[in-house]
């Protein structure tokens, strides 16, 4: 394994651990941590960062759902009621993303982070 490979792997490991930490701390999926770190640390393009983030989120959300399921916290019907329309939305969102400049994705993400920060700061 080359030096660059090891460096990349190390950064990916930090990225995953940080995403998990914040996910556990705040109950978020981890995308708000993963996408900027892939862009700023690993040199990802915006579209690749968002696509790869979704793959990581599958794993994180599936494990967390099973854990919560064991405690009986998951309402399957309500989850489908909001999740199935969102599947339609994600088809639209990913298609739309291919048609806009990657800069729009970065700026949109920065906007999301500011809103999220305000939400955390205002009690």
């Amino acid at each position, binding site marked *: 394994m080359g030096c660059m490979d090891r460096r990349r792997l190390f950064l*990916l490991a930090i990225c*995953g651990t*940080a*995403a998990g*930490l*914040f*996910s*556990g*701390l705040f*109950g*978020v*999926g*981890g*995308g*708000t941590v*993963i996408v*900027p770190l*892939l862009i*700023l640390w690993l040199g990802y*393009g*915006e*579209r690749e960062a*968002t*696509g*790869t983030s*979704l*793959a*990581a*989120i*599958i*794993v994180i*959300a*599936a494990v*967390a759902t099973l854990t*919560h*399921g064991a405690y009986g*916290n998951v309402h399957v019907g*309500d989850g489908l*009621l*909001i*999740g*199935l*329309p*969102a*599947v339609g*939305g*994600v088809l*639209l969102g*990913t298609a*739309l993303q291919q048609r806009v400049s990657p*800069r729009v994705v*970065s700026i*949109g*993400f*920065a906007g*999301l982070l*500011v809103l*999220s920060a305000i939400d*955390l*700061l205002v009690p």
Partner: protein
Amino acid sequence: MVVATILVGVLAGVLAGMLGIGGGALFVPVLIAVVGLSQVDAEATSLLAIVPVALVGAWRQHRYGNLRLRDGLIVGVLAIPGAIGGVALVNALPERAVEVAFALLQLFVAYQLVRKASPGRVSKASPGRDAVQ
């Protein structure tokens, strides 16, 4: 109630596809305010809703050539021990301090993203611009 839930679902999905997030930031408040779930049940149910969204989104991005599956799986698997640590931390640290620290970190990262995306910097995001080096 059903209509509002479906509409927010679609909107959350669009944001998930555009920005590579799960959509939980919108799912949780709606499941609490509109459906009437408790905070914990809303978070748990939101995580269930995120699974198909992330699956379909990742599949589409794979078709568009924007998915590095190996990297994504490394990040996802390593996030699991991280999440267990996070749950332990949230019970040990003062919650308000953690919230403020994370908010400040997010503002800093937002600034970095905007700076990187700003015109004037040479990047592949602006192919029309000749390299000015």
